[in-house]
């Protein structure tokens, strides 16, 4: 009980303390945040060690009449996994920030917001009811806006923050609508009750379907799936440590988490195939767009989209444990990749364009090694953690879903190795493409930068050997697992082939690549992929022509000619009512007393007439 409340309150109290202390002394901000996040991780760890059955805390937020809004906490193995990810990676992230944010003049603000962000995630994953989860969900939405637009004095980050806010808000509306529907139909916000009700079939199927779909739309927004993903790429404008936090430890996981939390509900609602379908499409869009990006963070952002989709597909294919296992593995190796990228950016004079870097392996061998571990896990090479969960998901799509979904998933999974190899090769191998940047590059600190990377790399490797335990911990009743059979060797052959192609094009024969890229057809394909299939442009076009030009204009007309006309009439009407009513008042005392008595007489007369008495 006390440990859970400490977990809930500490980040917010810590955020305030960090800010206040930081205002007195810049250095204190880091140490305060460091201590707070460290404590959070220790608390989560203690909860994990002592965990035997779900911790339940029931509290009421407010109640009036028959309306009771609960705000309870429920920590089971699923929530615990998320807590460990959020607090553990959050701690490493803050450790990493010590050097990464060292020259920033607004450190108190930064650390306070990061703690607030982690706090939002903790509230979300520990919530017993949808109401509490919604509060955490929105706290995190706010914090992500703050952090993405952390450098808000520049235009791009400020816009990116707004973009993230609007895209996720689009989904949030549906979550809120789903809550309303559930309250009317099921009378409960409790996750476990909802799961049970759905399984028993107490909730009307159509309603069940609608609610499941609404919540999934919210999850799409938060987890950056098709079509609400463009904010994920724009969010790269924030500090890289924030990207690692959003893409690894917290925010994007929340969409998947909420679907996983309501997994039985989703199974009963018959929407799993939709989830798998949207996931497969997003996985393909993400993986193929990642192939051609120039900025290393954008590559990783598209990769996040693609891999979260894999987790969604895992859920959609009917396996809670598989989806969550991939989410866990992804959280760790993606945080590793992002922070490695952050280390490179920081050391290489804030260069993000991979075409300006190269040969950095000589400058920072440790970072190169750790990033390679992350890359191999992402590609699905045994014995790293990514291999187990990713291949299991591909196998189960083949067994449980349609061929189309399975194909998309297979291709998306396959492409991972291509874009990540491209990234790694461009960064670390070959000769430097820009001598000035190369000479400016200095090796980062071992303790503050390389150590957290090393820990995450070790975890990535270690998790590979504990996959069965992880799945079992998340969902004890996990049954039969599909196997790829003959596809496995094929996958490996294709992967090897892709590595070869990438190696050839980006290392040995860049001239061939450039010639190919100059071809008109290749150029246009490149443009489509580079711009993320123009989804953002389409959304803006839609928003502009349909909403701004169409609906807004109609509303404007209505406002100008109907509402305004009405509003203009209101004062006149009100004035005439006032004047009429004003006539009932007279300052003469005699008149006033007469009114009183007249009132009494009328009242009694009417009451008598109505036969009251």
């Amino acid at each position: 009980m006390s440990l859970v409340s400490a977990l809930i309150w500490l980040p917010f109290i810590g955020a305030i303390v960090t800010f206040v202390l930081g205002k007195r002394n810049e250095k204190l901000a880091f140490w305060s945040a460091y201590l707070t996040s460290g404590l959070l991780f220790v608390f989560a760890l203690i909860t994990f060690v002592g965990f035997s059955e779900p911790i339940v805390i029931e509290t009421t937020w407010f109640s009036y009449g028959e309306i009771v809004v609960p705000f309870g906490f429920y920590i089971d193995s699923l929530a615990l996994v998320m807590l460990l990810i959020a607090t553990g990676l959050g701690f490493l992230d803050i450790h990493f920030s010590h050097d990464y944010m060292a020259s920033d003049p607004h450190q108190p603000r930064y650390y306070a917001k990061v703690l607030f962000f982690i706090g939002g995630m903790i509230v979300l994953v520990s919530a017993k009811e949808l109401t509490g989860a919604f509060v955490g969900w929105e706290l995190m939405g706010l914090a992500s806006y703050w952090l993405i637009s952390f450098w808000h004095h520049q235009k791009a980050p400020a816009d990116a923050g707004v973009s993230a806010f609007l895209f996720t808000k689009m989904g949030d509306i549906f979550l809120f609508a789903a809550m309303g529907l559930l309250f009317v139909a099921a009378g409960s916000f409790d996750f476990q009750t909802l799961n049970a009700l759905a399984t028993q079939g107490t909730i009307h199927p159509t309603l069940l379907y609608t609610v499941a779909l609404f919540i999934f739309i919210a999850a799409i927004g938060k987890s950056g799936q098709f079509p609400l993903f463009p904010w994920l790429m724009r969010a790269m404008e924030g500090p890289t440590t924030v990207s690692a936090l959003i893409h690894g430890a917290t925010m994007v996981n929340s969409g998947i988490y909420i679907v996983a939390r309501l997994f039985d509900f989703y199974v009963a609602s018959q929407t799993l195939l939709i989830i798998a379908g949207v996931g497969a499409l997003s996985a393909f869009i993400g993986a193929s767009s990642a192939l051609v990006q120039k900025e290393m963070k954008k590559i990783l952002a598209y990769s996040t989209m693609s891999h979260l989709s894999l987790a969604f597909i895992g859920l959609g294919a009917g396996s809670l444990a598989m989806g969550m296992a991939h989410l866990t593995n992804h959280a760790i190796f993606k945080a590793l990749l992002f922070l490695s990228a952050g280390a490179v950016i920081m050391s290489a004079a804030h260069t993000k364009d991979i075409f300006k870097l190269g040969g950095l392996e000589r400058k920072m061998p440790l970072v190169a090694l750790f990033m390679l571990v992350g890359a191999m896990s992402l590609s699905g090479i045994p014995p790293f953690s990514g291999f187990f969960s990713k291949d299991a998901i591909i196998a189960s799509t083949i067994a449980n879903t349609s061929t189309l979904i399975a194909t998309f998933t297979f291709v998306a999974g396959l492409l991972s190795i291509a874009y990540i190899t491209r990234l790694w090769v461009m960064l670390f191998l070959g000769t430097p493409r820009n001598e000035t940047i190369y000479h400016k590059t200095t090796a980062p600190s071992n303790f503050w930068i390389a150590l957290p990377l090393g820990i995450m790399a070790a975890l990535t490797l270690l998790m590979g050997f504990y996959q069965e335990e992880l799945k079992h911990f998340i969902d004890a009743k996990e049954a039969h697992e599909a196997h790829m059979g003959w596809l496995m060797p094929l996958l490996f052959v294709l992967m090897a082939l892709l590595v070869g192609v990438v190696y050839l094009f980006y290392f040995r024969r860049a001239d061939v690549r450039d010639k190919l890229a100059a071809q008109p057809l290749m150029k246009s394909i490149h443009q489509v992929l580079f711009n993320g299939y123009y989804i953002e442009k389409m959304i803006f076009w839609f928003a502009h022509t349909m909403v701004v030009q169409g609906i807004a204009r109609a509303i404007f007309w209505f406002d100008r000619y109907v509402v305004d006309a009405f509003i203009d009439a209101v004062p006149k009407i009100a004035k005439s009512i006032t004047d009429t009513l004003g006539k009932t008042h007279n300052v003469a005392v005699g008149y006033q007393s007469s009114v009183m008595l007249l009132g009494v007489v009328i009242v009694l007369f009417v009451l008598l007439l109505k036969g009251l008495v």
Partner: protein
Amino acid sequence: MSAFVILSLFALLSFAIEPLNRLKLFAVIGLMVALFLSYQGCAVILSGFDATPQVSFFEMIVFIVMIAVVLHEQEGINITQLLFIGAASTLLLQSQTLLSFILSFEALSILSMILVAFIQTKEEADGAIKLFIAGAIATALIFMGAGLYALDGHSLLQGIEMPHTPLGHIGLWLIVLALFYKLTIVPMHSWAIDSYANLSPTHTAILSAITKSVAAIALFGIYQDYLVEAGIINLYALIVFALITMTLGNFLALFTQRLTQILAYSSIAQAGYLLLALVAAQSQHASSGILYMAVAYIFMQSSLFLMVGVLGKKPTHLTLKDIQGLHHQDKLTALLMTLQLFSLAGIPLLAGFLGKAVLFYAVVDAGFYIVAFIALLNSALSVGYYAWIIKEIYFEKQTHPMELSITQTSRVAQLILLLGTLYFGIFAYTVFAYA
């Protein structure tokens, strides 16, 4: 020992204390002791009086507001009168029988008249006379009503029973109509339009905020059972009164320029809301509704009238033009006024919002959806003139500076009242626990 005894004692002793120039401190101590006794739930040791938790809670609120008024007040005689009114309020709130109710009400009524008898200007004389005459009529009505009710064969030494004949019903209704005078419900409201606008703002704060809400709570306490049993027609009559009162008050306030007059109309409109609690008498939420509304109302209304009192040499003459740009002259007063006006308008996180919300919920719960809807429209209408005042304060240029007479203690008083508005706007369970 009850708050009544203590306050009467302190009021009497205050004549001796006044020459020593320590009257404020003395009165605050007296009110603190009264506050503590109410907290202990002490009742008046006379037959016919009892202190329920709800009553004790409201007494505490009244005493807190009175402390603020004392801190605000410069005139010694007003402080003495205030202590007497506090004693009478205790009596009225705790009365359980019809006789004790009538007598306490008369005590409060007479004390109000004595309070306003401290006349300094011609306008105050006008206000005082109107209050006196209306009060006299009410007294006549209340005793006539009590007489008819007794003729019907009931004892006045107990709570209200169901009358046997029309005579008893008429008697009870006459008493309600007499109470309407204190509550300023149409048709017993006309005196208040002039009195509230012309009397010294301190007097108005006491009359319109304290005695009105005390009377409302007491009326609800003694009449609730009768209204539930006596049939729907009673409720319909009350609905008509409530809706006419709030509509009249809001519409008249809409185009008024004089500040005290706007607040007077607003006070009448708020009385209409208070009456809704009686309409919703059959709902189990009605008691928390009226308690909440009264708590919210007493803080914001007294704060605003007291604040107007320090805005110039002749506060009752102030128009909206005079307070233009107040923000530039005194930021704190402008902010305080804005917050209290927002509370009156019913903006969330302020007590006025929850008061209305809880009350309207009770009305809906009692089944009168349309009534709640009309009340809601009225509430929206009222934002029109409240927001207008705020607009004048913040968005207009100051043409000539005002002669503010703000002291340190009056600041403290305003902060106490603001704390009340904020606290009860957020921590709703405090009130629910007592209702």
